[in-house]
């Protein structure tokens, strides 16, 4: 089959979606109304850890306007536990509401559905809960100690998973090394906090015993399977819609809330809507794992990297849905863009009394990149090498592509040194160094930060077998449908609901090229509807997967429709289909464009005048296609796996200026050069680079879910959980290289996680560069003005940032937990 003609793919086509969004005509979850709709509110735990001694909701049920009340005990009777995506532990049921124990501040314990939100919230105050507080464990290293308070006493530990992986002769390489850089890095909890909060509407149809959901959940395939299993209904009696989604970034998956709505709706006999408020969002939806990484980097005197050993503690909070996800993705991306022949990775996935951790733009990679890129900058300082030069000496080169890293990732294409060189050039690196020296002479503190990254696209779920010991789900795939309607207009749908990535436009561009029409002639379904959208368990908006699965699905479906159009046209024109092409909305004879049949005429044959079809041809012009990315393979005997599939790369260079009086950090310049292969729509790609980079800046300088020692979240509003505003960030300057991927259908690679991966490292490297003369080493995030001010006053020993380098010996750890994993039915 011939590939897309390329007239529209690659063009900066203005977005279809934007036309409605600029007018406020998007249709988001909270914009949806249903007849007799009730509104839900959740009662949440004020304690980080406590037993529920008594819960009496009768007062709420008596409030006028309340139509249903649900307690944790009732929820556990009426629905099964939530089936985890990564089942690490046996026999720990995770219900949609807390049953007899709360494990984080903000955990829902009861819910009310009433005629309006205010009435529901009033009714919550009539629910009496008696808690017996338990000691909370907030710090993940403390949680690993044998005497730590346990979230699940039945497990006998807070460590959900501990394992070690060695690829190559790490000990030998370390012994041969001229030196070993040892560092310990700490990263905070933060989240991408989509501007639209999470929410759902559930409706129960007693006549059909069927449930219908509307939600901005970004992973509908998985969510449907969880809901059906918990509700005890076949998936065939469950329908789920996604409308416009106001940003997601990994955070929008919490099937528990959909279950609560469903149970309330069934009790009330009316549809129930629940929309998270911002405090609920920040307190209880999803945080990226905070954690600790200890890095040992063996090197030769010339800077050549020989071996890398990482010990990684991921703080899962109360996450039973996707534990170990951050660990596994760090392992898959451990080498960054560097040639490191021997790698060891030891990991702990640890429960604490905090908000459930989970997916957040880049999952694990921002921390992995932070640790490696901080280590590289420190190594450059130690060796007296320019940090750019040290990186250039260690990159995987274009000539080595495809290159397989020790844990099994395959870098398919790209020229990593060229990406960095272009960034240095665009940044005017030499000029900036001179400017920095001049400024220093004037008493000003300028710092230059460099960080580079690989950016994978698509997750191979088979990698979870490393944790669970068995394969429940595997591979990487997506489904799409393309249909030429009876009037000749084109419609398409995709199992992946967009949350701002412009899929309606890109899908239309791809289909337009295949069918020889304009994108304007292709209507792409908004969002997702399980009754009309083709979908898989794997369907959803996650893992940067559009380029590696979705594109193939759309292309495949469009190509099937094209082939059928050509067969029909060939029959009607009595000519060989090979002599026809689709162009300008018609099938025409190559070289004789006057001999043509418009799509509308072919559609009339396909749907109405079906006796005019070629013999054996079915009526209709609709095709479904599923693209399974062939790079996804099972784990091999040496525990190597491509956990992610196709690799883009980027280099960031930034300039910061620190105010010596206040410790304020100002970003003066920020240059990104990236290579995501063929850009399907440069408008979308560039926007993604800007936005993801600002996510990285926010993580570096502003954002932190800060808990006190009792597990109270201290930053639960946008007044104290600070997001970057327009005055906090510079205009991100973007340039690109374009090495098409040889292994994706159109040569595109992922770009959605983008600057969220190297951004924190780039900013941290710049701050340290500004303060290096004071002996400052940046070992944790975020870097606050207060911390900088303390450094400027010479307080290097205070706070976690100044914790000493790792000398020797293991962490204080419980015995390995292997053998407890897997086995969950």
């Amino acid at each position, binding site marked *: 089959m011939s590939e897309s003609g390329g007239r529209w793919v690659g063009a900066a086509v*203005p*977005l279809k979606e*934007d*036309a*409605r*969004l*600029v*007018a*406020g*005509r*998007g249709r*988001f979850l*909270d*914009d949806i*109304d249903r007849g007799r*709709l009730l509104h839900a509110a959740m009662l949440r735990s004020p304690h980080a850890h406590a037993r529920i001694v008594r819960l009496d909701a009768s007062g709420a049920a008596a*409030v*006028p*306007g309340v139509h249903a009340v649900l307690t944790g005990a009732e929820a556990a009777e009426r629905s099964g536990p939530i089936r985890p995506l990564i089942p690490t532990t046996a026999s720990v049921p995770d219900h949609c509401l807390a049953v007899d124990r709360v494990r984080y501040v903000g955990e829902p314990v009861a819910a009310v559905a*009433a*005629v*309006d939100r*205010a*009435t529901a919230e*009033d009714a919550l105050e009539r629910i009496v809960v008696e808690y017996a507080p338990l000691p909370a464990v907030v710090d993940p290293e403390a949680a690993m100690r044998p005497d730590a308070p346990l979230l699940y006493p039945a497990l006998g530990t807070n460590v959900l998973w501990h394992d070690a992986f060695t690829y190559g002769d790490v000990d030998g390489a370390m012994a041969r090394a001229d030196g070993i850089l040892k560092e310990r890095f700490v990263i905070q909890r933060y989240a*991408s*906090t*989509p*501007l*639209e909060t999470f929410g759902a509407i559930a409706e129960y149809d007693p006549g059909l015993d069927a449930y219908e959901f509307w939600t901005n959940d970004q992973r509908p395939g998985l969510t449907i399977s969880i809901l059906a299993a918990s509700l005890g209904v076949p998936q065939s009696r469950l329908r789920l819609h996604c409308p416009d*989604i*106001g*940003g997601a*970034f990994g955070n929008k998956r919490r099937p528990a809330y959909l279950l609560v709505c469903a149970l309330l709706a069934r009790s009330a006999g009316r549809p129930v809507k629940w929309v998270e408020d*911002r405090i609920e969002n920040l307190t209880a939806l999803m945080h990226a794992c905070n954690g600790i990484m200890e890095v040992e980097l063996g090197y030769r005197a010339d800077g050549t990297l020989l071996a890398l050993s990482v010990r990684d503690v991921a703080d899962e909070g109360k996450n039973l849905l996707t534990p170990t996800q951050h660990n596994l993705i760090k392992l898959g991306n451990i080498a960054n863009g560097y040639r490191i022949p021997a790698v060891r990775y030891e990991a702990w996935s640890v429960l604490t009394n905090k908000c459930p951790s989970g997916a957040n733009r880049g999952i694990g990679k921002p921390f992995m990149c932070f640790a490696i890129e901080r280590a590289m900058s420190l190594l450059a300082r130690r060796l007296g090498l320019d940090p750019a030069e040290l990186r250039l000496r260690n990159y995987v080169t274009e000539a080595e592509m495809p290159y397989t890293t020790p844990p099994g990732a395959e870098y398919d294409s790209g020229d990593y040194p060229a990406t960095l060189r272009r960034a240095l050039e665009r940044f005017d690196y030499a000029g900036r160094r001179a400017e920095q020296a001049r400024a220093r002479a004037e008493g000003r503190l300028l710092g230059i930060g460099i960080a580079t990254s690989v950016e994978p696209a698509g997750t191979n779920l088979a990698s979870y077998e490393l944790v669970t010991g068995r394969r429940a789900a595997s591979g990487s795939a997506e489904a799409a449908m393309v249909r030429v309607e009876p009037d000749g207009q084109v419609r398409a749908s995709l199992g992946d609901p967009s*949350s*701002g*990535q*412009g899929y309606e436009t890109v899908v239309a561009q791809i289909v337009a090229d295949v069918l020889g029409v304009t994108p304007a002639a292709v209507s792409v379904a908004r969002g997702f509807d399980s009754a009309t959208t083709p979908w898989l368990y794997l369907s959803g908006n996650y893992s940067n997967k559009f380029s590696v699965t979705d594109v193939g699905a759309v292309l495949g479906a469009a190509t099937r429709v094209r082939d059928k159009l050509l067969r029909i046209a060939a029959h009607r024109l009595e000519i060989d289909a090979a002599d026809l092409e689709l162009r300008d909305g018609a099938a025409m004879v190559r070289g004789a464009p006057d001999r043509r049949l418009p799509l509308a005429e072919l559609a009339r044959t396909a749907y109405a005048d079906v006796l005019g079809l070629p013999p054996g041809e079915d009526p209709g012009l609709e095709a479904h296609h599923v693209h399974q990315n062939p790079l996804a393979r099972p784990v091999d005997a040496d525990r190597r796996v491509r956990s992610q599939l196709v690799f883009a790369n980027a280099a960031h260079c930034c300039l910061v200026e620190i105010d010596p009086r206040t410790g304020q950090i100002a970003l003066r310049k920020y240059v990104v050069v990236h290579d995501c292969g063929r850009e399907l729509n440069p*408008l*979308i790609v*560039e*926007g*993604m680079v*800007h*936005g*993801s*980079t*600002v*996510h990285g800046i926010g993580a570096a300088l502003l954002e932190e879910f800060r808990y006190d020692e009792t597990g109270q979240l201290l930053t639960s*509003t*946008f*007044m104290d959980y600070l*997001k*970057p*505003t*327009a*005055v906090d960030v510079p*205009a*991100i300057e973007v340039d690109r290289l374009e090495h098409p991927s040889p292994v994706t259908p159109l040569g595109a690679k992922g770009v959605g996680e983008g600057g969220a991966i190297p951004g924190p490292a780039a900013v941290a490297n710049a701050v340290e560069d500004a303060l290096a003369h004071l002996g400052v080493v940046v070992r944790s995030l975020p870097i606050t003005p207060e911390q900088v001010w303390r450094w400027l006053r010479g307080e290097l020993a205070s706070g976690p940032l100044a914790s000493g380098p790792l000398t020797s010996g293991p962490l204080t750890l419980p015995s390995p937990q292997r053998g407890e994993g897997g086995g969950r039915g």
Partner: protein
Amino acid sequence: MSADATSTPAERLRVRLTVNGAPVEREVEARLSLADFLRQDLGLTGTHVGCEHGVCGACTVLLDGRSARSCLLLAAQLDGARVTTIEGLTPAEGPSPLQEAFRACHAMQCGFCTPGMIVASTELLTATPAPDEAEIREALAGNLCMCTGYVNIVRAVTAASRAGARKRAR
């Protein structure tokens, strides 16, 4: 949506105001926010609610010509006020030049912040027809966007101001 007769009693007040140029008269609960009033009572869902504590700016509307957080105002306090929402800034015949600039520059991704950004930019361009980048960033500093990193939003407002200048020159 009106509350059921059985709903919790809350003091109800009558308000008369102008919304997008049209007179509106309603009886509202004293605790009803302007944002909820616009969205639920009037069906004007273009005004989005992002934080309900006055930080994110998604719910920004014009109140007597000045930008205001509709989540921090009560409908009941707006008797006699003139409120303009994104619906009121969208001409019937098609997008305004500012909206056109937002689309041309792809100054959004998910689009949830966009109505608030358009409202805040309208206020800026009304007072300062040719703002520089720093003025634009300052004017939009009360509106969070989680998607764009603000780059394309600043470009769009700049482009709209230039288009406005060309129009005035003619």
